């Protein structure tokens, strides 16, 4: 299968103070057609920065200082604003965390579909665009008469589904989702995830799904990347990451969530708090919180090395061989 998206060495700095703060550091991954890549991490791990960098929506003081984001071979980092605009939504769409904030409060829901549909298809008539908006809402189980509603007149779950339908309006190949289920209750969360899976099957788009909730990704994602301190510390298939997590942080993350479909086991949190990016610890960013650290962890920064079916950045696996 061909890669839709190839990210190489993506590095993002915040230039607020005298010293730039590195929020995304040398991030690389690939995404194949129709694949769902989960990105998990705590707040401050750089996952939100990754989203705005991937979608080229970052604003000052965030700057992409290095790396490439290749979409079917086109480097988005080098692309000018006009070319980028043509690509947006038809190829690359986004679903934001809170649909309440993401939908324009003073425009009808349907109108927010109509403007993007007509922006990318000049031949589409206003009437047909409204019909299409109603169809798209129907696709996520919202009745057609809701196109005339304002965002605040919909329930939280409806709004979230509407913004997923909105993301699919122009048939994108890649949808970036930023914790789209945090603002809704658990029942609605499962419904939405099931819908995303069904729509992906029908429409074949690929997804980058970013969340702090690893257990959710285990249900949904084909592959999972774990971010810590602005870097990917482990990346692999969902099964191998769950069954055989290698990085101590991944293990800690997995053990701090109750499993969704297996018997309960003892939950363990990770002691300590995420690193201060303004003043990152030397060596491996995780070493101050790591139970398995040994001499040198606070000096050498481990590289992301491939072992078997997945890759990990930890000095426990020095030459890519499995020790656990």
């Amino acid at each position, binding site marked *: 299968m061909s890669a839709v998206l190839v990210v190489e060495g993506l590095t993002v700095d915040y230039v607020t103070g005298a010293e730039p703060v590195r929020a995304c550091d040398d991030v690389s991954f690939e995404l194949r057609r129709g694949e769902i890549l989960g990105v998990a991490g705590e707040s401050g791990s750089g996952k939100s920065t990754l989203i705005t960098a991937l*979608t080229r*929506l970052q*604003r*000052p003081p965030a700057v992409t200082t290095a790396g490439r984001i290749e979409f079917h071979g086109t480097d988005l980092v080098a692309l000018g604003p006009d070319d*980028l*605009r*043509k*690509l*947006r*939504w*038809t190829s690359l*769409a*986004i679903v*934001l*965390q*809170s649909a309440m*904030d*993401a*939908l*324009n*409060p*003073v*425009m009808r829901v349907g109108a927010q579909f109509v*403007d*993007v549909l007509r*922006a*990318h298809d000049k031949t589409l008539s206003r009437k047909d665009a409204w019909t299409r908006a109603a169809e798209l809402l129907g696709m996520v189980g919202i009745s057609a008469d809701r196109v005339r509603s*304002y965002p*605040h007149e919909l329930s939280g779950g409806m709004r979230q589904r509407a*913004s997923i339908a909105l993301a699919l309006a122009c048939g994108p190949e890649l949808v970036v989702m930023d914790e789209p289920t945090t603002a809704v209750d658990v029942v609605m969360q499962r419904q939405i995830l099931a819908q995303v899976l069904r729509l992906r099957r029908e429409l074949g788009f690929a997804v980058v799904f970013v969340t702090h909730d690893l257990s959710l990704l285990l249900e949904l994602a084909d592959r999972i990347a774990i971010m810590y301190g602005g870097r990917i510390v482990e990346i692999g298939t969902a099964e191998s990451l769950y069954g055989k997590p290698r990085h101590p942080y991944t293990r800690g993350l997995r053990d701090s969530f109750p499993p969704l479909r297996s018997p309960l086991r003892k939950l363990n949190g990770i002691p300590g708090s995420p690193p201060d990016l303004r003043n990152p610890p030397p060596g491996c960013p995780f070493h101050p919180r790591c139970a398995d650290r040994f001499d040198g962890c606070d000096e050498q920064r481990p590289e992301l090395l491939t072992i078997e079916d997945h890759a990990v950045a930890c000095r426990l696996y020095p030459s890519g061989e499995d020790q656990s």
Partner: protein
Amino acid sequence: MRLAFLARRLGFYLAAAAAAIGLNFLLPRLMPGDPSSAIVEELERVSGQQVPAETLMSIRAIFGNPHANLAQQFADYLRQLSHGDLGVSVVNFPVPVADLVWQALPWTLLLVGTTTITAFAIGTLLGVVAGWKAGSRFDAILTPFTTFLSSVPYFWVALLALWIFGFVLGWTPLSGGYDADLPQGFSFAYAVSVLHHGVLPAATIVFSAFGGWLLGMRNMTVTTVREDYVLLAQAKGLSPKRVMFRYAARNAMLPSFTGFAMALGGVVGGALLTEIVFSYPGIGYLLYESLQKRDYPMMQGVFLLITLAVLLANLVADLAYVLLDPRIRANR
């Protein structure tokens, strides 16, 4: 929900109007002495004859009647108002106050109305651009300059402008609203003279008023631009113009709009200081003149009119706001 909101607001404005009328009724009665007798004496001194019984009654209804209790007086006062009778001007005896007000009103509406709208339009537009490109050179120069400008007392700007353009350069007339030598009416020459007299007062109002709109709009836009819905609009690949106006500016404008509606209400009161500096024949000048000459009936009448106009404008603003912001609820 919207209806309940409107009903509440309507109730408030009715109460406010009642309070304004009550204040207008009470003010002369709270003052030491007997204003109505003073006015009658003044009238007799000015005209050199006895004040007719009808005028006497009208003055007593407005300014207090030593021979009646307060409730009786208030009933008389309301009856008087309901006939549109605001009393008789002392200085311009025997012209009714209402007539003088109606003469001055068009001048004020013309001058202050157009300039209020122009200043709002210019300020808001520039504010959106400055906020959209916050931190750009455009913003970095315009915003501090406007900050200074909006801190300068208006009448001082007007004086300077009058001195430079009216006196030193001689481009504009020094006072008045029209050329007194021309017959009033819809002639071309008259219209030109009105424009010629109006351009400097208008320019000074716009010059010193647009800054306030600009600053407010700029900061609201800066805040709004970082809202998720603007980010999403950009992600949708809409044209920058559409994102700027339909998403950012449309929402950033909501607070400004309330201020604008209030400013429109203030139009009737006139740009008091403008009209005084330029001796412009509007409502503000009328109020100033009546104050200078202690023409109490005129003062009271003009004040009542101004207050009611402001209340009406606020009510209209609330109505319009409901249309602009679908989120409005009764519990605001």
